[in-house]
């Protein structure tokens, strides 16, 4: 076991939200938990970048020459900007779908939604 302090908290959050995903009955909560999972992963990435130093990578020439090792890795940050935007876009789609489902079936329970929609499929066929 060889854990950095920045690792352990994202891992805990990842599994807490995983626990939430496998226990909750509420669809909206599932969407929130997926967002939590994303945040955990993003935090992990940012932590990987900040392992050797946590100075923001916004530099002029002089600042870099003074102490290059204290600056955080810019690559994970740039990647995580993309990941955050992807996350919010997908969440918006999910929430819209859930809204439509709620309009139709008047429930947010996973099991009830599954039963209702499967009976509808049978009628269709």
């Amino acid at each position: 076991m060889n854990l950095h302090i920045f690792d352990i908290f994202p891992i805990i959050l990842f599994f807490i939200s995983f626990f939430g995903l496998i226990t909750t009955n509420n669809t909206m909560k599932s969407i929130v938990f997926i967002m939590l999972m994303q945040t955990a992963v993003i935090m992990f990435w940012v932590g990987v970048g900040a392992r050797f130093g946590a100075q923001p990578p916004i530099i002029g020439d002089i600042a870099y020459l003074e102490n290059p090792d204290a600056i955080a890795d810019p690559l994970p940050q740039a990647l995580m900007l993309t990941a955050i935007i992807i996350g919010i876009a997908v969440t918006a789609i999910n929430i819209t779908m859930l809204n439509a489902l709620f309009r139709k079936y008047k429930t947010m329970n996973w099991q009830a939604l599954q039963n209702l929609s499967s009976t509808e499929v049978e009628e269709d066929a």
Partner: protein
Amino acid sequence: MPSHILIFFVIIPIIIAVFVYVFAGLKSARLIAVIAQSAFLVMALFMLIASRTNEITISVGGYEGFLGIILRADNLAAIFIFLTVFIFLGLVIYNLRSEYNHTDRLYWFLLFILEGTLIGLFLTRDFFNIFVLMEVSTVVVVILLMHDRKRRNLFAGMTFIMVNIVVMQFYLFGLGYLYMVTGVMDMEAAAYVIAHMDTTELALPYALIMTSIAAKCSLLPLLTWLPKVNALTGSRFTIAALMSGLHIKSGVYLFIRFQDVFGGMASEFFLCIGIITAIAGIILALSQKDIRLLLAYSTVAQVGLIIAGLSLNDEYSRIGSVYHVVNHGLIKVALFLGAGMISYLYKTKDITKIRGLLRVSKPVAIANILAVLGITGATFFGSSISKYFMISGVTGALEWVFIFINFGTILVFVRYSAIFFGRPKGAVLAPDWCRESVVLCLGISCFALGVQPAINFLLNQQVELSFWGYLEKNIVFVISVVAAYLVYKFILVKRDFLRPLRRFDLSFKTMCVSIGAFFGVLLVVLKVG
């Protein structure tokens, strides 16, 4: 061929998409799109030829080293791109004469966007770029699946997209560890670093990444999402064909790439998983009545077979598996488009009610027969050769397992072939010549892939069939067909004992549990072995 052309392989479909979207009022817009797509096919062919001698590489923006994103087209990527462009050309022509209104504009737009995304997925060698492209393709596929406003199944679509997001979080987490350990984002560089490294270090990133890729291939714990999505009410058969024929192949492609990067860790595990998935897929396919579900579960079985073949660590098996991906892609698209025509003609999707296709429409029936013969591995067809190579790498009991899986496939399609014979009940409609020709072309192309020059050309390797081995394989095939017919006639028709499996389905929570279980088991296997 200049290497800058690789970027245009991604840009051209997007430009076509925007063109179709903007000029939707033009009547000839779709015709122009088809012509552009044909030209694009020629371009893909040129790239396939060019990639035979040396791989084409470009760093986007021309940055040195591994600073930018690197696109590479080797032979494997070129094969996949050619397959993609070919299948999309077929789909576009298939849709050419359907009615065209405001919402259909969106459909065409998304179709071409999906093409660009998939080509980008095959070209890129950057780990994070793969993540972005997989998310985009997932979202596009979801909208395409629920395109029909009136009859769509929102619940299944939502489950599909949410499971995919959860799985992608596993991928991103694994990528974080991979970046932490190797310090690069490029596949070739990562493979180089990994080759000089202790495997126990890599167990965690490998398990996380492979969990997501196994879910993308719809391997065992998650095998329900693909059929469920294919059988959505309100989704079109073209999209089902796309999902089964091509979208799932992107998962297989990534599987090949990542196994290369990691040097084939845990291949025994994936061999077992592949075989179990194949058997489970066959059993579930036998239990279905819906024509789409039957074909989709058959896809699950075939993908399991491909994954098993890729995990054998044998050169010939690998060639056979890659070739089987091409074969299966074409066959499945032909079968699904044929099934779409059939369900349009008969106005039903119940396979027990469709009879006498040979009397109704000759071209559709011929195309379907060609495709069925292709997927079962009949002599002279492409997939017989791919299956021959796949089996040539195994010996002993494992060979019998592969033969048994092929027997199961034959059993499924013996059941499916019942639709050709008998008399049609009730009125049927007249088919559309445009669609008929596409289906027929796809059926013939399944046959054409069995010709020796086609194999040598596609795989860029001089493969040789041993006459006696091939003969033996064909004798086994004939025996299996006879046995399958007997089993079907005397056991399956009499008693429908697979009926309880027909409603087999996993809820979202169960899927999450199975993702976790797959990850845990893989990690334990890696740590122990």
